[in-house]
Every structure is written in C-alpha cells, then in structure tokens.
C-alpha cells in the first residue's frame, strides 16, 4: 500500500527549512505522496528515509521478463485484487510441460502441436507462452531434450530439474533464450543462485509455506537475484487459491517485498476437463504462470478464452473501429446488417455471416463499445446513431438497394429508423446463430 502524505512527513527532517522549494516539510510530503516531486529535492533527508521512499515507489509486484530478445513477455506488475478496480495487467502465461523420458518423435509431435496452438477470438490473437522441459532421467537426456525443444520452437522455455549439474548445463545451452529455472529451495538456493547469476536468468523460488518462501527470496536477494517467480508447491485447488490470494495480498496490502513477485501454479491432472478447471481457477486468481500438460486444442482454447475474459479492461470493453465492413465478395446488391462496435457483437455477427457464405456488409455503429441491448438502453444505438453511421459510410454509393437488417432485439427501432434513414428495415434474428438461415431466406 502506498504511503500517505502523513506517513512520509514522519520520515522527513520536520525543520521546514524551505530548501525543497516548499514552505513546509508537510507540503513536500504531500507532493511526494502524489509522486509530483523527487525525493532528491530535500537535501537533508536521511539515507534510511530515502531507501524507504524509493522502495515504496517501486511496483508492489515486481515485473519479471521471461524469454530472450526475440520473444519475451512481462509478468507481475499487478496493482489490484479485483478486476473491477482496474485492469489486470499482464495476462498469466500458459505453459506446457514436456517430459524428457519420452521418445524424440513423441516430443517433436508435442512441440509441433504447441507451436500451432493459436486462436483468433474477437479480433485478438490468443497464444500459449511457454514450454517447460522436465527432467525425469539422466543429465545427458535432459540436455538433449532441451536442445530439441530450443531448436523447434521460438517460445520461451523453462527448465525443471532437481539436478544442479544438469540444470547448469541446460541453462548454458539455453542462455540466450533466458530460460526460467526451476527451482530454488531452502536446501539448494545458493547453488541455483550461482547459475541464475552466471547466465542472468530468472528463477523460481519454491517453498510450501509462505513464511519460508519469504525467507528464501530474501536469501536469494542477498545473493543478488531479483528476477523471481514464487511457487508454493503441490496443493489441493482450494489451498492453492488461498496461497495465490495470500501472496497477492502480501504484496499489495502489506507491501511485503519478499513476496512481491509473480507466482506460478503447476496443474497435475490427467483428465483434460479437470486440468482445464484447475488452470482456469489459477488464472482467475492471480497466477502469473500456469503449467499444464494437455495439448487438445479444445481444452487450450477454453483456458485461453477465460484468460482473455479475466484480463479484459473492465473500463474499456473491447471495441472495433465503427465503419462499414464488407464480408466476402460483396456487390451492390449485398445485404447490409447493422450491429454495434462492441467487439463481441461484431465478431459474433461476422462469424455467422461468414458461415452463411453470403457476401454481406456489416455496419458497425459507434456505440462506444456497448453491446446491442446495453447501447439501446443507453440511447447509443438508435435511429439517429444508425442514420449517422449510414451517412458516414456513404451507404447509398455502396449498395443500390434500400434495405437494412437490424438485430431482432431492437425491432422496436424499425419505425423511427425507416423514417430517419429513408431505408426499409428488415428485423433480423435475435441471436446471431440465426443469421445464416435468415440470410438464405432473405430473397
């Protein structure tokens, strides 16, 4: 939690000497609290107070970068407990565990599948983020499989091994890709820290208990390691949710630096449905990285869609540019369907129009990203706004006919819209799913 002006005042010399340019120390403290001035403006501040103030200016959950220069992403840097307060910033990374005891051909197949796990939804590309290589046999095999993975994917990697030498060799091979090392524990942390330090790599710190975890990160900090990810180990789902919640609270509500890092959750389930439920729970509740094994595209799509939902900006719904969109090989006879510029509305209509294979125009009206019914209730989707959009896209130069199709839910607009636009209104289906049949029966 940020220090208040009063908290900061207590740390200042309280002499009101005016060197900082302000009349009193309290006034200066207020400016610091607003982050309007720098600490350095006060020449008399104690070193101790300065450290406290500088530290509190840092993000409460340290941003940690995973991956090398070619493909990297940021984790952490979150600021709130609940998404209605502010957008969750860095979407949880979804990674896949590859076991090194499998045959090369099998592993190649898995990598290939992972590389292809990309989906487009409401205009956004949904991607997976990480491959974790897990050592189950000897050091040589771990190294071999690490190379196999590195050579066959551009995704950032993570190295999972309890064998310090094996981990060191694999880290050396993968160094340019900045692999995430797994994991430092209270027993091995100085050795692991040496590897992380030598190759400048991020590191997972693991302990079952969060107090122990805080000790561990302090120990690692003392060795100069600051890019950390936290893991509280294998737990049942409810205990894991508790841990993840507690870690987030420690960082945000108590400014506990020792626990102010992104977190990791490993799902260990063989049933894809169970695996997805657990992964979804951790994504909703604060995990920075979630590791799974399942590669079915239906499973991965459901997890990534949940992530997209949770990490959407609650203040700014996903919207598209309001304009006329031709779909397919349109002609001057093609039907014109009207919807809003809320991404979900537009893309739902789009996919149904595409499915119908009937070239059409979709006019997306500027409703400030509101959906059909919400926009209608807020009077952003009415005869006026639709007519304005029609004029703006010069519809009469685009099609020769005089028909508009509006969503079934706003049938009530028909009269007004016909009057204002001079077009004939055809009421379309309520649900987008009805569009293909509707378009086929139009003529």
């Amino acid at each position, binding site marked *: 939690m940020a220090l208040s002006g009063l908290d900061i005042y207590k740390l200042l010399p309280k002499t009101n000497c005016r060197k900082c340019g302000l009349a009193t120390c309290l006034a200066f403290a207020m400016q610091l609290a607003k982050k309007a001035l720098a600490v350095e403006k006060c020449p008399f501040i104690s070193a101790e107070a300065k450290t406290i103030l500088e530290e509190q200016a840092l993000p409460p959950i340290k941003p940690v970068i995973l991956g090398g220069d070619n493909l990297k992403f940021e984790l952490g840097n979150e600021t709130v407990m609940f998404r209605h307060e502010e957008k969750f910033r860095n979407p949880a990374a979804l990674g896949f565990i590859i076991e090194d005891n499998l045959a090369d051909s099998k592993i190649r197949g898995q990598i290939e599948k992972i590389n292809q796990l990309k989906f487009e939804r409401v205009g956004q590309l949904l991607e997976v983020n990480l491959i974790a290589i897990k050592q189950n046999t000897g050091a040589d095999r771990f190294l071999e499989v690490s190379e196999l993975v590195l050579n066959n994917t551009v995704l950032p990697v993570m190295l999972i091994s309890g064998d310090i030498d094996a981990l060191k060799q694999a880290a050396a091979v993968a160094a340019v890709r900045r692999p995430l090392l797994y994991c430092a524990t209270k027993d091995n942390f100085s050795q692991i820290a040496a590897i992380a330090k030598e190759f400048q790599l991020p590191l997972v710190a693991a302990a079952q208990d969060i107090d122990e975890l805080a000790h561990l990160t302090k120990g690692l900090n003392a060795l100069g390691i600051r890019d950390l990810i936290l893991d509280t180990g294998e737990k049942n789902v409810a205990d894991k949710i508790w841990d993840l919640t507690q870690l987030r609270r420690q960082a945000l509500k108590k400014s506990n630096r020792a626990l102010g890092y992104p977190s990791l959750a490993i799902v260990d389930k063989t049933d894809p449905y169970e695996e997805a*439920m657990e992964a979804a729970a951790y994504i909703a509740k604060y995990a920075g990285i979630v590791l799974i094994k399942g590669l079915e595209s*239906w499973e991965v799509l459901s997890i990534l869609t949940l992530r997209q*939902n949770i990490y959407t900006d*609650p203040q700014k719904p996903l919207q598209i540019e309001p304009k006329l969109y031709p779909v397919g090989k349109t002609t001057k006879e093609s039907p014109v369907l009207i919807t809003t510029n809320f991404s979900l509305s537009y893309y739902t209509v789009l996919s149904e129009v595409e499915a119908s294979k009937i070239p059409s125009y979709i006019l997306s009206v500027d409703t400030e990203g509101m959906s059909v019914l919400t926009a209608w209730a807020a009077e952003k989707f009415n005869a006026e706004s639709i007519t304005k959009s029609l004029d703006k896209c010069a519809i009469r130069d685009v099609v020769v006919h005089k028909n508009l199709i509006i969503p079934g839910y706003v049938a009530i607009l028909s009269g007004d819209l016909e009057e204002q636009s001079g077009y004939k209104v055809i009421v379309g289906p309520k649900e987008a799913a009805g569009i293909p049949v509707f378009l086929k029966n139009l003529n």
Partner: protein
Amino acid sequence: METQLVLEKWAGVISALTIGANKEDGGSRANIVRIGGQGSLPLLFKEGSIPNRPVIAFEIWDTPPQDWPDDLTSAYGKVLNDPFAWADKCVNELKAQLLCVRMQGAHPDFGNKDPGEAANFISALLTRVKVPLIIIGSGDDSKDNLILPACSEAAKNERCLIGCAVQDNYKTLVASVLADGHHIIAESPIDINIAKQLNILISDMGLSLERIVINPTIGALGYGLEYAYSIMERARLAALSGDKTLASPFICFVGQETWRTKEAKAGYEQGVIWEIITATSLIQSGADLLVMRHPAAVEKVAGYIDSLFNK
C-alpha cells in the same frame, strides 16, 4: 512466523436459504437443498465460514427443446420428448439434487400452454419426482404473469424457487411467492444498482431479503463472462461489508448461455468444456446455484465442487 497473513474480517454474511420442503415442513420433497450463508469470499475457506456448497440444478423443459445442438440432445435421447421421463432420468440416473423446470411450452410461440395446463404440469411433476424445484417462466412477460401464479399455487408449500422477477415486472410474482411460501429469483441486467434496487422493491412488498436469489444474467465463457463475474465479485464484497440488500445467493443460467455459443456447436468436447469452464469460473466469483444442461459437464463440475469442499 514472521510473515503475518493478511486476513479479511467481514461484518456481513450472505443470506442462507432452503429450497424444497419435506414432510416436517409441510411439503412432500424427499430432500432439501441449502445454499448461501457464507461469511467469506468464494473458496477462501480459511477466512470465514462457507457452510454450503454450490449446487447444480439440471435444466428441464415442459416441452421438447427446439434449439438445442445435437451434442446436447444426444446426451438425453428420446426422453426429451417426454418431460416426465426427462425429469426421471435426471433424478434417477444422473442423481440430480434439484431440477430447474423452464415453462417454455407456455410461450405464445412454443405451445401457448394456458395457466391451467401449466399448473397441472407442475402438480404432475411434483408427484413424479421428489427433488426440490426451481420454476422458470417462458420469457414472455405477460404470459408469465398468468402462468407463474398458477404454477406457484400448484406447488404451494413445496418451497420452490420461482423466477424471474425483473425491475419492471415483479409485483405479480412476488405476490404469488408470498402467498404460496416459495422463494424468488430477482433478475438484473448485469447491473449491481438494479440488482440492489430490485431486492429493495421486492422486500418492500413484504417478501424478506432472505427469500431472494439474484440472477445476475451471466454471459458464457468468451461471451461477456467477465461482466457478470465482476458484478458478482462487487456484490459479494458489498454484502460481506454489511450491505444486506446485496447479500443474496446467486443463480447462474450456465447451460442456457453456453449452448447457444458457436463453441458449443463445434464438437462434443468443445461444447462440454465450454459449459464446464463457464460454471467453474462463476463458482470462483460466487455462484451458489448453477443451472446446467449437459450431463457430462455436470459430472465434471460436481467432481470439482467435491474436490474443493472435501479437503
């Protein structure tokens, strides 16, 4: 321990409510279902009491469903043509703890059942199955104002949950529910202020806040799930902080929303997992009652609930 846990202390508690009345309570149900009563945010068991689990209700219709995709209808087969056989299958074979019956057949476009027929249907259903009932209207407001009072009366003293009351149409339903000893579902369009307002309006008519379940009108996974998710979180935070007018359990129509999405028609597994993740994500934000459709999805979500609560 140096690291002090950050624990929230809540002043408020979610209202607890029982659906179904057994013999002692003047009804004829073989089992009853309790929901709500939490003194904690969802699934944070170490912080407050969570006395009741989220409960899944199987959705059945009083008429064969028209627009259900094949992967859903094939899970039930022929029984979809006979609501009573359908109800039997849910209770006997699929072990439903309660049923949510949608009176779709009363809709002017889907059979236009009159109030007498609707009442007879509910009476027969109550004889046929002994689990508690949730009764939902056809979606046509003026028609529902005729048939729901009839259904309510036919189920008098069985302590059903009946819905949905909305801001501009709640009085008729509230009066019936009051007269016949049921509970009510208050539906608000993803809007916390309307949810609160409607709860106040209903309680002003004499139906206590403890007899209201909120329907926050969810979207399915990928279809605006996050809106209801956050409304539910906000309402829970307000309720636990002491706002009694928002301290109602939530009912989420998971099946209805899932099985009209594109994904639900894109293959068996895709549809089933879509319903599953919609359900479990809403459990995460506070769902108390999940109305679901696909037996395979229900089975997985029930297993998940068990794993959360049987630690």
